């Protein structure tokens, strides 16, 4: 019998590890266990095309059910791994149904949960989170009947849901705690642009605003009460205030954690050499500079890091080097980001935010580190490519829109 690899978490990263193992001609047993009712599927459309009714459940599937059969990948859904036992030679995972699965090597791709909000009324019907397909269906089933949608949290998911709501003609309000939107990842220029762009479309954006409770009647939410006592009518409240990485199982296994995230090295190895981890559940060295510890909640990272993890499981050290990138679709605005802007000391604005077509380019010590583009695909692609090749674009000319960014790239 060949080697047995167990993947806990049947999401984007877990699926990719399984596929990459087979691509590398791993001929042992692959078992993937996931606690959701579905096999691996795409989350990004949940707050975009799926919510807008432009894509169905089947089109969310990352692979068809037949694919797993043909590739001899066992996918167990609707079960949660609750514990792992180690013997001298191998490990055994135990699920909530009592099933035991023996393995030689383990991959943790447990993702993250939506960060819960602890305020009065959070259990009312119509107060929802959006992490998985079950959440998205709950949201959709209430969508058509809802006239008033309130989004708590001005991050990507909240803004995307707000954009769909407004487009569907709903009275839409975004309540955000801090002083600017998406403040963790984008520059003040980009934040300000998105606030104004959502307002232009008729959405109310409240910054520096705290929720004191959700009010309701007959078990259903009817409004959101703010700290100053104002009540905003609501048929649906969507809470999007970030995530909590799923490090619970890793903690049980005694792995090194940072807050709730599993700590991995550039080979996606945890503090136990027999266990790899990838995706939303981990913190890793910066994939371009190797410095510090970063968490990247993105499809790109889940996929690329999973490939590295698969390689490590095959005994081949393949250092994680990739340009982080991300996108967010908000009505007609396509935000695309490449690189990690954290720690920037200079930004250059290229194009005109008033035309909803511009880029913000980030520099540190005079070197290009990242870009946010809105409806400026060429800029975004040029920077993504330059970063991948270790190149830069001079900051003193980057704002000149008469020259393509890709023609300014230099070593």
């Amino acid at each position: 019998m060949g080697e047995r690899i167990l993947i806990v978490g049947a999401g984007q990263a877990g699926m990719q590890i399984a596929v990459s193992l087979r691509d590398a001609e791993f001929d042992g047993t692959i078992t993937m266990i996931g606690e959701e009712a579905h096999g691996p599927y795409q989350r990004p459309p949940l707050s975009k095309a799926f919510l807008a009714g432009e894509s169905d459940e089947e089109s969310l599937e990352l692979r068809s059910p037949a694919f797993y059969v043909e590739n001899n990948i066992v996918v167990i859904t609707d079960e949660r791994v609750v514990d792992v036992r180690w013997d001298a030679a191998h490990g055994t995972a135990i699920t909530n149904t009592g099933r035991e699965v023996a393995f030689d090597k383990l991959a943790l791709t447990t993702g993250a949960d939506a960060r819960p909000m602890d305020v009065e009324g959070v259990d009312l019907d119509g107060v929802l989170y959006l992490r998985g397909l079950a959440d998205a269906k709950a949201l959709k089933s209430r969508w058509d009947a809802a006239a008033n949608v309130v989004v708590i949290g001005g991050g990507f998911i909240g803004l995307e849901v707000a954009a769909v709501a407004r487009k569907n003609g709903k009275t839409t309000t975004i309540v955000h705690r801090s002083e600017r939107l998406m403040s963790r990842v984008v520059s003040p220029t980009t934040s300000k642009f998105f606030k104004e762009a959502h307002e232009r479309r008729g959405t109310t954006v409240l910054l520096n605003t705290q929720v004191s409770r959700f009010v309701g009647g007959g078990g259903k939410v009817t409004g959101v009460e703010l700290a100053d006592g104002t009540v905003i009518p609501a048929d649906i409240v969507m809470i999007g205030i970030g995530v909590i990485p799923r490090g619970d199982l890793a903690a049980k296994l005694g792995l090194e954690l940072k807050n709730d995230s599993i700590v991995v090295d550039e080979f996606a190895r945890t503090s136990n050499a027999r266990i790899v981890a990838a995706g939303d559940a981990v913190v890793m060295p910066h994939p371009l500079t190797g410095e510090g510890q970063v968490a990247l909640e993105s499809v790109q990272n889940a996929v690329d890091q999973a490939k590295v993890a698969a390689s490590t499981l095959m005994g081949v050290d393949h250092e994680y080097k990739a340009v982080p990138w991300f996108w967010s679709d908000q009505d007609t605005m396509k935000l695309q980001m490449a690189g990690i802007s954290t720690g920037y000391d200079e930004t250059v604005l290229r194009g005109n935010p008033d035309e909803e077509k511009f880029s913000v380019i980030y520099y540190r010590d005079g070197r290009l580190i990242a870009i946010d583009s809105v409806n400026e695909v060429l800029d975004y692609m040029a920077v993504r490519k330059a970063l991948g090749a270790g190149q830069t674009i001079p900051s003193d000319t980057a704002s000149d829109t008469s020259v393509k960014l890709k023609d300014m790239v230099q070593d």
Partner: protein
Amino acid sequence: MPNVTYIQPDGKEVTIEARDGDSVMETAVRNGVKGIIAECGGACACATCHVFVDEAFMGKVGEPGPLEDDMLDGSAEERNACSRLSCQIKMNADLDGLRVRIASEQV
């Protein structure tokens, strides 16, 4: 249901029956056709689903839209007149028999 044939970067040809309305990308990825990565899942945001459409079908498939056109400018393998992002081509009866060659470099 319409058929689509993929020529993988390894030279192998794979023919798949597509769901009407599914994109050429979705049909490939869900069925494990090799070479189309499609990290963004069809949002026209990644350019990792680059294909070269068989010339005979170019008329029916049509030219890329403006956004797709810009994305193709940054594709890993140099584009040509038959380049398309496969997530932007929806399958229908009219495209039955479509042939596409998958770009050998996507990232």
